[in-house]
């Protein structure tokens, strides 16, 4: 099974950031399907096959979840805690993509078991670079956890 076929789950409340992140991923040459959720509740519904989304039932769990920190309804830390509390998603790669460089946000995220923490750079050049590197690493370079890809 090839990694390129796996989806990238983008959890981000800002439409602009969804567009720019998507553009950055495409500019990096990634053709993976990008699923975007506008807040933590949608993301949990998608992953847990609740509500309108079918989620991972077709065997293509996301290669990585790009998770924003500050969102309405349910923020990134709550989403992270819920995902890690579920046995099925204990090893799902999750990377924080956030504007917050606050130390305590980082500490909390790592304590909840995040795989990476990326502060969105202000300049577009650096932003493009950061998103490309994250996308390429998790969607192409990295080998996903075996049990996650075999599941279902």
């Amino acid at each position, binding site marked *: 099974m090839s990694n390129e076929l796996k989806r990238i789950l983008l959890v981000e409340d*800002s439409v*602009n*950031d969804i*567009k*720019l992140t998507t*553009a950055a991923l495409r500019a990096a040459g990634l053709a993976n399907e990008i699923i975007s959720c506008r807040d933590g509740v949608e993301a949990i519904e998608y992953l847990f096959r609740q509500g309108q989304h079918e989620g991972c039932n077709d065997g293509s769990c996301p290669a990585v979840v790009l998770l924003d920190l500050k969102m309405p309804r349910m923020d990134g830390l709550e989403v992270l805690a819920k995902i890690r509390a579920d046995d099925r998603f204990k090893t799902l790669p999750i990377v924080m993509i956030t*504007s*917050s*460089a606050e130390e305590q946000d980082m500490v909390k995220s790592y304590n909840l078991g995040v795989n990476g923490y990326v502060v*969105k*750079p*202000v*300049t*577009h*050049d650096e*932003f*493009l670079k950061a998103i490309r590197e994250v996308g390429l690493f998790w969607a192409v370079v990295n080998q996903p956890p075996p049990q996650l890809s075999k599941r279902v």
Partner: protein
Amino acid sequence: MEVAVPTTASFKRLIISALIVPIGMMSCIAVILALQIKSLSDTAAIVEHANATVTQANRVEKLTIDLETGLRGYLLTADKDFLAPFVNARDELARETDALRPLFGDNFAQVARLDEIVVLRKQWVGFAERSIAALERKDPNYLAEARTKVGKILIDTSRAKFVELIGREEQLRDERSRAARRASWMTLVTIAVVTLLGGLLLGWLARRQFLALAGTYQHALGESHQLNMTLEQRVTERTKQVEERSTQLAEANRELEAFSYSISHDLRAPMRHISGFAELLRKSAGPGMSADDNDNLTIIFDTAKNAGRMVDDLLALSRIGRQHLKKTNVDVNEIVRLVIRVLEPETRGRQVEWRVPVLPPINADSNLLRMVFQNLLANSVKYSAKKPSAVIELGASQDNGHVTYFIRDNGEGFDMQYVHKLFGVFQRLHRSEEFEGTGIGLANVRRIITRHGGRVWAEGKLGEGATLFFSLPLTETSST
């Protein structure tokens, strides 16, 4: 606040009553005494009068004896010489008796006795004169009447009456005298009792007044004490208020920092979006874009980038305020080496001479101190960019428990007139077209140094360069 301090009027009343009461009491005692003394002296006068009466009565009695003695002598001797006392006494008797009568005053019983005596005397004198006349006539029976004892009876009766009279008078005198003695005893006892009672009363009154006065003073004292307490309490309250106010200020400061953090945080995203979408636009337009459009896009891009950098610097500034200092013994030489290496891309192609001696270590937060050197050295590099050969010199000195570091360059410098603006937020002394920057760098430097308990200052001259100083307290862990 009102305090019941005794007023002058109430004091006067107190003093007047304290004087009037004893004076009144003493006056009463004096009046009683005067009355008693008057009655005593009256009694004494009466007694004296009684004595005089008795004396007068005795004188009358003596004259009677003279009468009898004279008569007896003459009748025995028929010598006229013996008759002289009789004649004298007879004349005198009437006078003395007349003198005696008014002395009895209203005592009619005595007057009546006296009158009786006078009648008896007159009868006796009649008898005596008849006997004398018989002797002068040489009557051989001149003693006949005498022998009848009529004369003797008369004189004896008269004498008995006299004794009665005097006895009565003496009795009266003694009675009055006893009464006077009783009265003086009574007076003494009255005075003693009145004085004792008055003394007790005065003492009691004085005690009561003193207690009232003491009470008033105690009350006043208590109130003044209470006033003091209130004052103390007020000071405590005011101190508490000041503490509360400073707590509120600290709270407001924290909120302000949180606000500035969240504002700068929220501003980052739009800046990123502007430059991001400008870039997308440039890419989608491709090479077909006009030169003007391309320039305009570049301006949008650069402006957003600059604003974004400003936001980043602001974030750093607000973080410095909230961040906890992690002080260690910092090797300043290592920090300087690191910063110079980081600045290398900017000095590439330029002639920059670094003059760096061995610098003393200092007790500070190493990350923040690196930020200080980063800002100061970057400034020197930036403002000396237009000089053909830049010289950036570092140094340090140590005195009064402080280490002072300096960074000197031969760059653009500044006018000392504006030195006070150098370390302010968003304060710039040069146009941004000449030297790009956000105007926050030196504000950050000052903030970091201030948080370490140190201070920053600068010297400079326009066109000739600037020297920036900062001093930090030298604590034990940082001593060499």
